[in-house]
Structure formats: structure tokens, C-alpha cells
């Protein structure tokens, strides 16, 4: 909240002025003087972070759009290399930008990153948005902060059991599925058969994507990848092209060994909320 914020209920509010002040406040390093700190963490998440001696610093983003050459989607054989390269390039670009923002803001890592990807005919877009965090009291940003799609809660639980995230491991593969000949398609019409052309294309896209994700996890010096998000299926605008994308947070042991958490079990005695559902009356 800036000190010169208009008080009282007199309208109209000077919204361009408000925005200018917000932008000015965000331009400098956060958390100093009267400069505000922004974060999309909930109060609970922020408290959890503080419980392990970390604090949020700033909302950071990274985005990148990579062009895909004309006409690569429709005919061919094997992998659509230019699409796979474009995806990798867009992701690397977005990561580089979020790194830069985090370092500038003084963060040591980014948690709760929302990953948005979109595969279009002529371009592939990747957008990352998350909250930069740092150990309380450290003011210098890390040169290569970690980027993780795990929330602050998961980050805390990992930290407590002796693990740390090292970065976002990503892989993608785009492959053409060869068309069945008209004759084969007719012949198979009434049969139970596996469509080997599609199965093989799906496998090939999956394997390239998973292998790339593993390579990127190893490059991040992770010993594992958790919470992998997998998206697969034919490309909307090119039905004979199959895409497979996978990403997850690379993790490694921070100390010597894994610390067990020894959970206790609880039974909540709250009654289930019974909501009145008008649609059941139809």
C-alpha cells in the first residue's frame, strides 16, 4: 500500500495514477523501504514457508514464443523435429527470463509455478508464473535459482524430509503417425485389431519426450523427478501428428539422508456438508 493512496470515498478514482505508482513500486528491488512485496501464495502457504525459515519475495514470470516453420504438421515421417525444437526453445527462453527476474528480485528459487503451454500451427508458447522465495535474511539473489511447479506446501514438506527442488525438468516430442492405406482401413473395419501405426507413433513421441525430460533432470543434477505432468494426444489442427509433453520438478537430497516424516492418522469428526442440490429435484 503506497502512502499517497487516495483516501476517502470521492470518485472518480485516479486509476492511471494508481497503476503508475504500482509499476514504479514494482520496478525496484522488493521488500525494502516502502516497496511492497507481491505473491500469489495463500496466508497458510506463507506461514508454512516461514516455519522453515523461508519467505516470499516477489511474483515473477517468464514467457517465450517460438515460431514453427510453415507446413511441418501435415505430411512426413518420423519426428517433427522443428516442433520439438521450438517447444524446447520456448521453454528454455521462459526459464531464462524467470531466472533473470528472480535473481533481480533477490530470490533463491520460485515455487508454485503455473506452467502454461500452447501448441499452435505457427508458434509454440510457454508462460511461467510463480512466487520467488528466499531464506529469511538473505538479500542477494541466487545466480541460478530453482524453478518448481510444486506449491509452497509441497516445498515445505520436501524441505522437512531433507529434499530440495533443483529445477523444472521438461521434455516434448512431436511425431507423425503414418496414415493407414484405404484398403487396410476398409479391411479392418469390422475387426478387433490394434492400430500399430498409431501405437508406434505414440510410443515414439512418448519415448523422446521422457528421455528429454530425464536428460534435463540429470542436467539439473536432480536424483529424481516428482509430480510429473503428462499431456498427450493428437494435435488439434493436425490429426496425424501426435504430441507428448512432460514436465515435473527435479529433486535431490539436500543433506546426507532422507528424514522420515512419521505421519499420525486422524479421523475428522466433522459431518459431511450436505449441500442442497436443486438439480436433483428435476
Amino acid at each position, binding site marked *: 500500500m503506497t502512502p499517497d493512496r487516495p483516501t476517502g470515498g470521492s470518485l472518480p478514482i485516479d486509476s492511471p495514477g494508481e497503476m503508475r505508482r504500482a509499476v514504479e513500486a514494482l520496478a525496484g528491488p522488493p521488500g525494502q523501504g516502502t516497496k511492497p512485496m507481491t505473491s500469489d501464495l495463500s496466508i497458510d502457504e506463507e506461514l508454512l514457508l516461514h516455519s522453515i525459515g523461508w519467505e516470499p519475495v516477489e511474483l515473477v514470470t517468464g514467457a517465450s514464443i517460438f515460431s514453427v516453420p510453415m507446413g511441418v504438421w501435415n505430411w512426413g515421417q518420423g519426428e517433427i523435429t522443428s516442433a520439438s525444437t521450438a517447444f524446447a526453445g520456448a521453454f528454455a527462453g521462459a526459464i531464462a527470463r524467470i531466472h533473470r527476474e528472480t535473481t533481480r528480485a533477490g530470490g533463491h528459487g520460485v515455487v508454485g509455478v503455473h506452467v502454461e503451454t500452447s501448441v499452435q500451427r505457427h508458434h509454440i508458447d510457454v508462460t511461467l508464473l510463480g512466487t520467488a522465495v528466499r531464506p529469511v535474511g538473505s538479500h542477494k539473489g541466487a545466480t541460478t535459482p530453482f524453478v518448481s511447479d510444486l506449491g509452497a506446501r*509441497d516445498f515445505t514438506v520436501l524441505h522437512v524430509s531433507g529434499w530440495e527442488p533443483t529445477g523444472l525438468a521438461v521434455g516434448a516430442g512431436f511425431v507423425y503417425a503414418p496414415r493407414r492405406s484405404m484398403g487396410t482401413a476398409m479391411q479392418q473395419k469390422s475387426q478387433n*485389431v490394434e492400430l500399430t501405426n498409431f501405437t508406434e507413433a505414440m510410443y515414439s513421441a512418448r519415448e523422446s519426450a521422457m528421455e528429454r*525430460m530425464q536428460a534435463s533432470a540429470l542436467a539439473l543434477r536432480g536424483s529424481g523427478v516428482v509430480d510429473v505432468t503428462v499431456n498427450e494426444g493428437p494435435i488439434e489442427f493436425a*490429426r496425424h501428428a501426435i504430441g507428448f509433453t512432460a514436465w*515435473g520438478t527435479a529433486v535431490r537430497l539436500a543433506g546426507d539422508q532422507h528424514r522420515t516424516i512419521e505421519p499420525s492418522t486422524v479421523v475428522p469428526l466433522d459431518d459431511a456438508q450436505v449441500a442442497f442440490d436443486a438439480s436433483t429435484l428435476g
Partner: protein
Amino acid sequence: MTDAPQDPSAAPEELPKDLPEATSRRLAELEHGLFTSDLSVNEFLLIKEVGFHPLGLVMGSSIYHTGIQTRKWGQSQELTKLTEAMYNARELAMTRMEEEADQLGADGVVGVRLDVNYYEWGKDAAEFIAVGTAVKAESGVSHRNALGKPFTSDLSGQDFWTLMQTGYIPQGLVMGTCVYHIAHRGLGQTLGSAGQNVELPNFTQALYEAREMAMTRMQDEADRLEASGIVGVRLEEKSHQWGSHTIEFLSLGTAVTKTSDEVTLPVPTTIISLDN
């Protein structure tokens, strides 16, 4: 990837017997200590808690074309050809996933998801996919099932932890399926019951029979694994793309056996949360 002409009797031989080369390469990489997994952080830590370590995300898939079977308008019957297709395609996906787990030297696969996806590849073609996380006991004791294969289970990390505390161990994901055509009612029947409160015995009976068949087939699978019970059974009814009177009844669950009488599950604390 050639379009070889497919003769029905020769079809099984043409199916890829082994895992693709790239899969073996990927799995070889995993053997060097890196793991991948779609488990959440909670599940990952709970699996570590019971002495297992994740090895890798394992998958199997098959894109399958289901054949055509004519149904009689007024007759309730199982559509064996469609049942076979649903069985075969799922088995293909499951077996391929198990093979991957086997190659990793896993004791089992947890958190298995079995999905059917319909894409725009044409009518009657669907992708059957099985995805899970291969795990191995850190103690080196083998937890493979009665058939010497890695166990499979659709239990979450949380359920797996709880089950292990009570001395049970999963044996395998078991399923039974039945595609059933339910007869339409004749005009006379419909008119006869108009305005009355009556049970529709033909519908009731058809649904009963189809469900029973699916359940029995699932139990048979569990018997083969010498399991003592099936937990977390789900019964799903789906029409897929066959119209309203043709329904697939699918029952899925995890077959378990008791390995020790020792229950280490702590007595649960009862709580009343004060937040709303």
C-alpha cells in the same frame, strides 16, 4: 512402421512383442539412479516411509480398433466381440506397462491409472493407456506377486501406506468387463405399463446379469493371483460410442494378500477442525 496387410489370424504375430528400442534406452538411464514419477510429493514421501523407493514412470498403451457386432433390437445379450476388444486392448496396455516395470527390476507398480481416450482418428478407434510408478523395496526383499511378476495396484500413495501398515500387500490390479446390449421394450409392453408403478424386469435383469459377469471375471483374476481379497473396487458403466442401449460394465480393484498379522497402523486421533 509399415502398413502390412492384416489378416485376422496373423494379426497377433504382427504386434510388437518387445518394448520399442527407445523405451529400453530410457529405462537403462533410469537404472543409473534417476527416478521419474507422477506421484505427488505427499505420495512420494509416504512411499519412502514404508521403505519403498520410486524407480520410474512406467506406461503401456495400445491404440485399438474395435470391431462391429450386430445387436438385436429386442434382445438382451452380451456382445462378446466388443467385450473381447475391451479386454484385449486393456491387457495389451497393462502387459506393456508390467514389462517396463519388470525391466527396471521393480517389485511393483503403484498409482496405476487405466484410461480410454477417444480421438479423432475415426470411429471405433481408441487409445487404451496404463500409467503408474514402478517402486522397489529399499531392503532388497522381493515383494513380487504369486506369479513372480511385479504387483500392480491402482491405490494412491496414501492408500498404499495404510495398507502396508495393516500387514497386507497388493498382488495385482484385477478387472472384469462385460459389454452388454440391453433390449428395447416392445410397443405393447410400453403401452401396458404406461401410467403404472411397475418394475421393468427386463431392464433390471439385464443390468444385473452384466454387472455380475464383470464382477465374476474380476474375482477370477484375483483367484489366479491367489489373493485373499480385493480392495478399492470401482464399478464403472460407460456407453463409450455405442449408443444408449449398449453399455460396458467395468469393475476394477486391487487384489491383496495378508503377509503378516502385525498391525503397525497408529490408533487414529479424532479431530474436529475449527475452520469451516
